[in-house]
């Protein structure tokens, strides 16, 4: 899956995170900002890479500003940003690449 244009999903409200994606330079380039990076940084990175792998995204610059989001929210915001970049809002693969 190729990132076609820059896109963003999520907010900076508590329990949420804001995810921005844009075309990468041949790899996954993750920038993570979180107040709980020491406790949960590795978990957030793990969820991020797993989600991108499921979506088939291998070339992306992804920025995550975390405000204490649960794993399910991180996944939702990454998928939201990726599908926005593709401008796809219907016929989504629920239970497939999205799970």
């Amino acid at each position, binding site marked *: 899956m190729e990132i076609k244009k820059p896109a963003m*999903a*999520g907010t900076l*409200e*508590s*329990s*949420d995170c804001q995810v921005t994606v844009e075309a990468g330079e041949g790899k996954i380039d993750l920038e993570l900002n979180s107040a709980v990076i020491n406790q949960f940084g590795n978990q957030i990175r793990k969820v991020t890479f797993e989600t991108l792998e499921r979506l088939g995204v291998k070339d992306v610059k992804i920025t995550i500003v975390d405000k204490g*989001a*649960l*794993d*399910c*929210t991180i*996944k*939702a*915001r990454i*998928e*939201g940003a990726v*599908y*926005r970049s593709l401008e796809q*809002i*219907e*016929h*989504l693969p*629920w*239970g497939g690449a*999205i*799970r």
Partner: protein
Amino acid sequence: MNPNKKRLRRTMMFLNAQKPGLIKDPYIYKPDSIMLDLEDAVAENQKDAARFSLYHALQEIDYRGVERVVRINALDTPYWKEDIRCSVAGGCDAIRIPKTECANDVKLVESAVEYAEREFGRPKGSVLIMAAIESARGVMKALEICEASDRLFGIALSGGDYTKDLQTHITGTGIELMGARQNLVIAARAAGIQCFDTVYTDLDNMEGFRQDVQNIHLMGFDGKSIINPRQISIVHEIYTPSEKDIIFAEKVVTEIDTKKAQGIGVFTVDGKMIDIAFYDGAKRTIELAKTSGVYKGDL
């Protein structure tokens, strides 16, 4: 029949599906149902993002037995079909149709839900439907809406849009809602399904809220849509039979069973004239006490 069709639904709490902070742990307040909203609470440019948030919440958050209903977008928008796919795939318990105006609206949703159940491998009939009635036309067509689908567990009045359509406004007294409330309860009862009242939005007037709930309880509603956890305990208190009600209901049931065997049709319990017409009501009180977790008897 889906065994959840008649479950206890005293409170249905609205939550914006796009807000992770709201949908992560509403079960701690113990509403009977939550209404994960993809419609009015979600801005037009966030409809897509809300679905991802909803899907993963349904899949990964343990709501501890609280029923998970999703309010989809209206049938005159481009969103409702994907809303249904996402909700059914996520594992929702029921879909709420907004702005229902006729039986065909229910049938359209029923068909899309059935298709989604097949697509995502869920058992046929596992997803229930409820219909919100928000217009004068919907109120006039209430009975045909109630009888449109075996999946339909109930109808709900949505007072904001309804009063706009009626060219009046919410006063807090309930006068403007009287006709619709009465009509919807009668239609729901005639069809054997449940009926839910509209939200009460003035959170600073808890006494007014209590009076509103007492009124709709007396009118026969099964429960109320709510917008804040503070409203839950009041509704549950009013809808839970008191110990006095339960003891009286037990006496009525026991006495009717005994007297029937003796060939006696009319008698008195605690000074009140009782006959067979009281039987179903007394049984309902005991059932409600059981489902509310306050029944200690053995009937």
